[in-house]
């Protein structure tokens, strides 16, 4: 039987090895280590609490059910962040398509046609969950992060909030190292521009 303290001090690779042996505490340890970083990344990407929780759950189910395919020579954190980021990006793409369809059918070429094919959305009052999201993501820096392009957002969160190395971010996002550096540089410049007026 694996002692809890042993698990807490073990490396990710060792915890995964215990999970392979069917030790439930090892699964719980992986969840304990990564639920907050993964959830925070996805939440800051999609900016919707419920959706972020669903996507985080999907990420963990996918990862924990595929532990036998994990190769210990790679970092576990890179693997899980890669799956989480892909889930968030897919969701943002789907949302983009939904937004376009709300603004009129794809064959709508005239303003009349756009109006006829667009969906009418009524006034939606703010729920307690909306209020919570507004409070959590309402600070100047969170709003500025939310305005970045998704790929810049992912880079800046992983670099500055999660503290990942450039090469690990490149590996997670499947991007060349130079591109990652450029994205982070531009993202920082955009954040500086967005936050600048508040400090003057």
């Amino acid at each position, binding site marked *: 039987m694996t002692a809890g303290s042993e698990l807490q001090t073990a490396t990710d690779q060792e915890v995964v090895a215990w999970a392979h042996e069917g*030790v439930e505490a090892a699964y719980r340890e992986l969840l*304990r280590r*990564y639920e*907050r970083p993964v959830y925070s990344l996805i939440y800051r990407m999609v900016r919707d609490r419920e959706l972020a929780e669903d996507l985080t759950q999907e990420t963990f*189910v996918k990862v*924990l059910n595929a532990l036998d395919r994990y190769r210990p020579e790679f970092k576990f954190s890179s693997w899980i962040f890669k799956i989480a980021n892909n889930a968030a990006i897919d969701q943002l793409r789907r949302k983009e398509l939904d937004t376009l369809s709300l603004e009129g059918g794809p064959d709508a070429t005239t303003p009349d046609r756009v109006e006829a094919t667009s969906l009418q959305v009524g006034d939606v009052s703010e729920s307690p969950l909306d209020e919570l999201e507004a409070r959590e993501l309402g600070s100047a*820096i969170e709003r500025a992060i939310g305005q970045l392009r998704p790929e810049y957002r992912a880079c800046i969160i992983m670099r500055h909030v999660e*503290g990942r190395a450039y090469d690990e971010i490149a590996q997670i996002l499947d991007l060349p190292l130079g591109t990652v550096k450029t994205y982070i540089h531009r993202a920082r410049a955009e954040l500086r521009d967005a936050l600048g007026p508040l400090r003057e």
Partner: protein
Amino acid sequence: MKPIDSVAVGNGEMNEPNDRASLTPAEEDPVIHRELAALSPFAPTVLFEERVLTRVWRPEPEWARNLRSAVRELRDTGRIWLVLGALALGSLIPAAVLAGLGAAFASEIGVGVSWLFEQGLPTAATAAGRDLAAAWSQIETQIGTTQLSGGEFTALGAGSAILLAGCAIGLVRAMRPSMVRR
């Protein structure tokens, strides 16, 4: 304010040296760093772990696998009946010992059981009832002799109202999604 490379990143427990940020001087940008370093991690709602684990297939623990393969081997070789027979015989031994003891001390056991039901249990029940009645009458006397002034009544009422409001607020908070702050 903590510098970024001294801040435990992620959940702070990655156990791998390069999980920690090591920003080069060229990246130094105090305003952005301060703002980003102050960001709070978020946590999913309670029972998230359980919801995930119910959807995760876990391999059997090693001892269960070994036990299963041992049983399979016994079944395949036909020796399982031998083992089951031995277990059945083995379980007869303590039963026979108990029966023998019962027969040898039958009269003593009979006396003990009849004492228990005729004297032991009724005496204990009477004593417990007497103590309970005495305690209740003491409480009644205490309530009857206590006289509260108007101010004391008001304080009691206000205290109860505050307690009730506290419980209501606690309940409402407990029903909200959890949010973890560093």
